[in-house]
């Protein structure tokens, strides 16, 4: 066991897989001698060298396309798009190529690749927009968004070993924020399994990434108001673990969904719609979604703080479903 930050846990997962499996290599910008954007690849180039840690030009589409090609040949490329804001530049490679190949070749080919990318608000505020909900809409892709160092290591390991294209969203706010006990030996957190991060009876808050921490804080605060709030960390965006959400809602009868990206058309819409289809009878209140307002994400700290959903937004939403 070591106490690792979120990013250290991610790097540890990558390093361990690179030691274990010579087919694993990295493509990305500034991942070599610099050690990665926000220290996101620290030590990998020193250990694995130029051939396995490839600094690329600013060519997001070809980077992802190259990973598809290498994966077709049985490699296990990890391609890093520095920020999720640039995923749109590589979207065709992701959704028309990577996602389609296994099905379209009737299983003759598969594309075991990882796209890692940084998202969310962060200490430097740069590149805050992300489109993770898009990926959940596209068949043939998996997508995860860990909220803790433990899950970060386990999900990254699972992503690298997965025979499909997996997008790993790494939350910038969490990168250097917290330390967690992380086992030294390899382990996987299975893709597609949500986790009950906190048990409760009166309402369920389903959250992703940074919002898991805000939901936990909100839940703690709400005990003072006599409420027992369950928090479910989705962890995977594709496939979504709807059964875990259903089980929680059947227990609490009240559902709030919180994520940092835009509420309209966000991943919360799919979670809500799934519950409205599968467990509407269990609900004692409307399903309330908490997400960013429908505007581009502003840059200044003062505006960003006004803009993003915070602990109070989640508390309010819980009170609303509880009092319904």
């Amino acid at each position, binding site marked *: 066991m070591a106490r690792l930050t979120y990013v250290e846990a991610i790097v540890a997962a990558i390093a361990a897989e690179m030691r274990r499996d010579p087919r694993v290599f990295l493509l990305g910008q500034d991942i070599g001698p610099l050690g990665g954007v926000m220290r996101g690849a620290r030590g990998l180039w020193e250990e694995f060298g130029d*051939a396995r840690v490839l600094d690329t030009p600013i060519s997001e589409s070809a980077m992802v396309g190259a990973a*598809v*090609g290498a994966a077709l*040949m*049985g490699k296990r*490329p990890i391609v890093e798009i520095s920020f999720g804001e640039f995923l749109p530049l590589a979207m065709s490679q992701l959704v028309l190529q990577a996602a389609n*190949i296994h099905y379209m070749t009737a299983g*003759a080919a598969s594309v075991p690749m990882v796209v890692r990318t940084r998202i969310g608000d962060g200490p430097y505020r740069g590149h805050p927009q992300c489109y993770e909900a898009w990926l959940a809409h596209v*068949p043939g892709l*998996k997508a995860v968004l860990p909220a803790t160092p433990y899950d970060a290591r386990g999900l990254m390991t699972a992503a690298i070993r997965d025979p499909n294209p997996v997008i790993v969203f790494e939350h910038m706010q969490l990168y250097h924020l917290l330390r967690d006990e992380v086992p030294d030996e390899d382990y996987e957190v299975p893709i597609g399994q949500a986790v009950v991060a906190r048990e409760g009876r009166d309402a369920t808050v389903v959250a992703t990434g940074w919002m898991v921490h805000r939901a936990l804080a909100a839940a703690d605060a709400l005990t003072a108001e006599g409420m027992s709030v369950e928090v479910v960390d989705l962890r995977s965006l594709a496939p979504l673990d709807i059964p875990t959400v259903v089980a929680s809602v059947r227990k609490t009868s009240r559902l709030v969904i919180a994520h940092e990206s835009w509420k309209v058309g966000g991943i919360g819409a799919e979670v809500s719609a799934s519950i409205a289809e599968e467990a509407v009878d269990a609900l004692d209140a409307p399903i309330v979604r908490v997400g960013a307002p429908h505007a581009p994400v502003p840059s200044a700290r003062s505006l960003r703080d006004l803009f993003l959903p915070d602990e109070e937004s989640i508390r309010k939403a819980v009170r609303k479903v509880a009092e319904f």
Partner: protein
Amino acid sequence: MGAVNSPEVTRTRPALTPADLLELYRLMALCRTLESACAELNPRWFPAEGEEATIVGSCYGLRPDDVVAPHYRGPFIIYLMRGADLARLFGQALGKSIGYARGRAVPFTGPVKVGVTPWVAGDLGTSLSVALGVALSFWYDRQMRRSPHSPPLDGTHPADERAVVCTFGDGTANRGDFHEALNMAALWKLPIVYVCQNNRYAISLESRKYLPVATVADRAAGYGIPGATVDGNDILAVHDAVQAAVARARRGEGPSLIDAQTYRLRGHWAEDAADYRPEAEAASWRERDPLPRFERRLVEIGAAAADNLVRLREQVAAEVDAALDRARQAPDAGPADLGLDEVLAWRG
């Protein structure tokens, strides 16, 4: 059997034997025949008639462990050259269950197991980057063998010499992926040959409407790689240029860009009358049709007698007919082919 003794032919490397020349002819004839068959089977087929010399010449003589990332126009002959089954290809064009994609993918996809990259959607240009990744994988194998933990690189290990041929259209040459992929291939000296199957049109547009230069090869200098322009209706010229570039790639000297200038004798799709272009232009290109041209050449240099070639064409026609029969009799793709639970690969 030695190389045929003609100045043009001896220029080719590795040397082509008379048997090779006949095989090239057979493949061109087969390409012509199967393309018109596909165009009849499927009115939305994109026929490659006229471009056979470029297509066959680019991919002939590759090793089985090389990979081809073909242009979407005319890939069937390439799949065949790599080992595909013709009836299954026709099945593919018809959306039959026996098609390699079982009706799931576009009609012009093929079997990936024979060293080609798959066509799954029509987003032109992305294939140049996917091909780049295949070449990167070959480069990576070579680097791994060079690492202290691997046997030393002796230059003879086959994995050290695998190469990629990526063909693409002149219209496609303007997609961003062209630029990004060629740049990375050049930087890392990847073993790949980019061949522009330049048929002077992108759907209805004449190339001067989208290409401000006379040859796509003019773009090679911007990546510091060799560029060459060849007569794309001269199969030996194409083969020679591509093989020289492949040899270079195998030697680890990096990518090349070749513009093979040819012509789309028919419309963009089978039912397109192509009346947006001057009849005189099409007529002049019909005179340069690569098939009769190669036929004359073969007879001239004594590589084949005319009736030899007639026989070959008859064989090809029979082969196509037989495969068509099999394909037509096969059932349409049905519920068992839909495979809604085969979207994600399972961990083996």
